[in-house]
């Protein structure tokens, strides 16, 4: 019987090729303030929480801390009180596709990589790391480059609009921070676009901005404009995906807002998660090989 198996650039690659070998771990009796310090300092999206025996017992992500901020908890709250349990794992020799599938099923953005024993955690596996791998693979792929140079055009190369999420979530810059958190919580987005009184893009609030505000003693009732990042980083939907990815990676940003002909008209958002789900980093050279018969 012939089976059709979906293939991508990532097929056959192992978790150990993409994982980040830095695990931020804190015991459950440590405070949220210390957790925020570690997340900012090491540019991590989540930390592994350990119990009294130093065994992994939970995860605290930026989303969890954002919820604590919204709920009015003090930064002295213990990590164990807000952690999600149990932590989800993958293995270094597991295929990346299997890890991505597990992340999708559990609606999480990262897995911890388990070593030889259940207590040994040797890395983290997340969407941005996969995009880095995709970029490196595709930028050295002779097939894609050769085809593009032979054809003399970029027609065969992927555009931002093909990988982006075609809508944005927004809140008013003058509205309270709590409103921006509500909008973020209702969607699986990492940032919310803030608009001015005329509905034009004014800034962005990311989960990193929110946990920093929490750490700095800001109250959720304050106007969102006080903590937003500005200007709004955007690109055109017609831009090459490769160029947008490259810019995101080197500028250390998690997303670009995508505009149409008018740069002030935001139509979507391209995040590193979107790019990881799209599988191909830069061109369409490998797309015909995605569906093969075994």
């Amino acid at each position, binding site marked *: 019987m012939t089976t059709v198996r979906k293939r991508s650039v990532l097929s056959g690659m192992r978790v150990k090729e993409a994982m980040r070998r830095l695990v931020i771990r804190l015991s459950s009796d440590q405070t949220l*303030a210390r957790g925020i310090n570690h997340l*900012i300092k090491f540019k991590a999206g989540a930390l592994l929480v350990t119990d009294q025996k130093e065994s992994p017992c939970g995860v605290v992500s930026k989303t969890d801390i954002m919820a604590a901020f919204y709920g009015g908890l003090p930064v002295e709250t213990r990590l164990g009180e807000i952690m999600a349990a149990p932590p989800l794992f993958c293995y270094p020799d597991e295929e990346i596709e299997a890890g991505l599938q597990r992340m999708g099923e559990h609606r999480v953005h990262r897995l911890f990589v388990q070593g030889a024993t259940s207590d040994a955690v040797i890395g983290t596996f997340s969407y941005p790391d996969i995009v880095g791998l995709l970029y490196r693979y595709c930028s050295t792929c002779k097939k894609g480059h050769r085809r593009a140079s032979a054809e003399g055009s970029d027609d065969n190369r992927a555009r931002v609009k093909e990988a982006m999420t075609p809508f944005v979530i927004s809140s008013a810059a003058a509205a309270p921070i709590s409103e921006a958190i509500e909008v973020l919580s209702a969607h699986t987005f990492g940032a919310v676009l803030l608009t001015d009184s005329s509905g034009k893009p004014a800034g962005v609030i990311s989960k990193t901005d929110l946990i920093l505000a929490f*750490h700095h003693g800001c109250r959720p009732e304050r106007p969102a404009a006080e903590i937003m990042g500005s200007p709004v980083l955007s690109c055109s939907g017609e831009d090459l995906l490769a160029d947008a990815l490259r810019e995101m990676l*080197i500028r*250390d940003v998690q997303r670009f807002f995508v505009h149409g002909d008018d740069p002030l008209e935001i139509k979507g958002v391209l995040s590193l998660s979107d790019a990881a789900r799209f599988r191909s980093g830069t061109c369409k050279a490998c797309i015909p090989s995605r569906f093969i018969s075994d």
Partner: protein
Amino acid sequence: MYARDIMDHRFHTLKPDDTVLEAVKQLYSASQAQGKKIFGLMVTDEEDQLVGMLSMYDILLFIQPKHIHIWGEMEDLDPGDLFDERLESVKRVQVKDLMSTDLVTVTPYTHVFRVVDIMIKQHMRRIPVVDDKEVVGIIYRTSVFYSLLKKFTDAPDIGG
């Protein structure tokens, strides 16, 4: 010889709410004032109790792009403008966001060889000296080294 004999009584401190930009200026002015390169400063709260340490390493770690391994593969990259953007992001960060809170301290009465032992085993360049919760000094690795060396070379049975 004890910590009190080799510790530096002159030290600059930061507050947790200081911006990292202010911390960089403090590092520079501390180096100027003390006539030697200062690579890290103690962070004290409003009651002057030690709550953290901030080093140049902590700041560099934050400035460094997360995907630095990819930069080397981009030959046409001009890092100048991008680095300016990274510095902009630093302006929104406070000392307490980056400081190290795993503190190791000694008292004025800690023996100097215990200080050396801590510095070697924990790869520490500087150790705060705390007496009854109050910061009274700081010991730099160079101070320990030259103090010990001086003591050894001054001994009549060495180098004679």
